[in-house]
């Protein structure tokens, strides 16, 4: 099977542009990138259906015709891409309504853990095991309160919550 080089180049360019856009932060650009990738894939289906210029379907087994199956698949893929893109745009609009931008944001909890690691702060459980050593109670609270400025949710409650155990 000989393959149409022009189509392949177009597919490559479309997908490459799409990937570049998907790596952006803004949801709208990501969606544009996804649409480009989707179009590249639809062309890929055309490539897989064989050479161009043949007749459409003319009944089973009557002379050379272009393969209708990849076209049906491409149509389905187009419909799905359309629906999902519409939902994505609605989501981008909603994000803009709520936050004033549509940037994809990082995970808050991940961020907390990362900051805790950067600060070399003790995690909640670490303290709990520390609590079994009775004479460390006093010294333990001090570094904790330093951290409390940066991580308001973790520290105070840990000490208070763990103390009754000892």
């Amino acid at each position, binding site marked *: 099977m000989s393959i149409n080089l022009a189509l392949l180049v177009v597919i490559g360019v479309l997908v490459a542009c799409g990937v570049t856009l998907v790596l952006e932060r803004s949801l709208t650009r990501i969606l544009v990138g996804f649409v480009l990738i989707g179009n590249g894939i639809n062309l890929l289906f055309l490539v897989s259906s064989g050479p161009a210029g043949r007749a459409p379907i003319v009944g089973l087994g009557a002379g050379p015709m272009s393969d209708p199956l*990849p076209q049906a698949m491409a149509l389905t893929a187009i419909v799905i891409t359309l629906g999902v893109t519409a939902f994505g745009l609605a989501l981008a609009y909603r994000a803009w309504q*709520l936050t004033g931008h549509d940037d*994809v944001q990082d995970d808050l909890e991940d961020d907390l853990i990362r900051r805790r690691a950067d600060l070399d702060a003790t995690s909640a459980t670490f303290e709990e095991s520390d609590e079994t050593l009775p004479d460390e109670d006093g010294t333990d609270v001090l570094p904790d309160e330093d951290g409390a400025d940066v991580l308001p949710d973790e520290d105070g409650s840990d000490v208070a919550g763990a103390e009754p155990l000892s």
Partner: protein
Amino acid sequence: MNQIVLLPMILPLLGAGLCLMFGRSARAQRAISVVVLSAVVATAVVLLVEADRDGPVTVTVAGWPADLGINLVADRLSALMLLVSTFVTLCVLLYSFGQGIAEFGRESPLSVFHPTFLVLSAGVSNAFLAGDLFNLFVGFEVLLASSYVLITLGGTEARVRAGTIYIIVSLISSALFLIAIACVYAATGTVSLAALAERMGDLPDSVQVLLQLLLLTTFCIKAAVFPLSAWLPDSYPTAPAPVTAVFAGLLTKVGIYAIIRTQTLLFPDSPLGDLLLWAAILTMLVGILGAVAQSDLKRVLSFTLVSHIGFMLFGVALANPLGLAGAVFYIAHHITVQTTLFLVVGLVEYRTGTTNTDKLGGLARHAPILAVMFFVPAMNLAGIPPLSGFLGKLALIQGGVADGGALAYAAIAASLVTSLLTLYAIAKVWSRAFWQPADSDLEPSRGGAGSMHGRGGVSTKTKVESRWQSFAREQRLPLPMALPTVALVLASTALTIAAGPLFSFTERAADELHDRTPYVEAVLGNTVQDGGR
């Protein structure tokens, strides 16, 4: 009679349409959803019995030749997955009624929930029954599209943020899947799994490996296998409890199912077994280390979910019948247990207004029934001996020993370490949320907590205060939410009692998968009789 294979897709879709028609009446929607899903569960039972007795049940839609048209196939694996998934979906639906009465009405548009939930069920069933790659893709898209709606339900800021990441990752995996399908079609001229099983072996090895890698990458994103798993613990916890529960139970398992199906049927002598074993080892270890670091109940569970996907992948990667049987058993066990745990955590959240273990405490004393409901499936997840989690892990380890390779032994070691760490993560959560005394000393430290953990607007200060009042009032759990959870707890425990018959069933399923001919003959043989070829 074979036509009943169509019902698990058609009934929920019809039901979804009816639900939209009766959008004004919550009661009518509930009735329709329950009737539809019960019917699907009944269908799944019939399919299971038939597939076990007479071999795969197949339907070729519209009478096209099997390698061109759409096939639906229910073999033992599909039927078992279908039964477990629809049963769990039904329980979660009943649970959501309780939550709908209790709190959905305020925050989320209830009229959208039921139709979307039914479409999700249709998509999952379609993926399990699909006999060709493209129909599998359509099944994935149907379940993903409805999961997009469910994960952003209500459109609050936290859900939009988490949902965006989930949707982008899913879009990328869908695009990859389409590329894989186009390449498979270009290489073989068919997308029917049964026809592919015959033709794939004729391709050059390098092309086979390329296609296999494309498909595996796609499915590993969906199943949240380690290097591709980072999206899951971020996006699942913010959704409403029933939604998280059904996602955790089903969606990743659909990915694992697709991996099992393609690995056994298309690439039986795969050169990538070692790669999969590495992925399994890393998924187990990295996932569980994540769980240990978390302090939020839902996030701990999400990370254990990622970690235990590694167990299933371990079984698949071994590719011997014992490993496969263990993996299938483990999937059935894990769907029920993980869903149950998320529902129980939903109850905890309902009861106390938070799932953060830094703020929770004393639940064992204040809500003993809830504590038992958490404890039993949690121990089951960790794999404490008599329970089904232990049996599944044992089967996997036996499969690993039967394999005998160095890497298989490494995977066995990793699975044992992971089990211990799961126990550690669960015990940590248990002692903090359930045993740690809940005294009023905690109250003053709550100052800025709401802003950091205010996911879904739950733990604002007023909520926290009312939580402590509710502790004092010994508030009862709402029965419509508690009963389905109890049913699932019992079902997941019943898997232990029924482990003998279930395991011999999964062994038969694994033999069937390993053998390949029953599946291929059931699909392709059918059309020869019809004269389609």
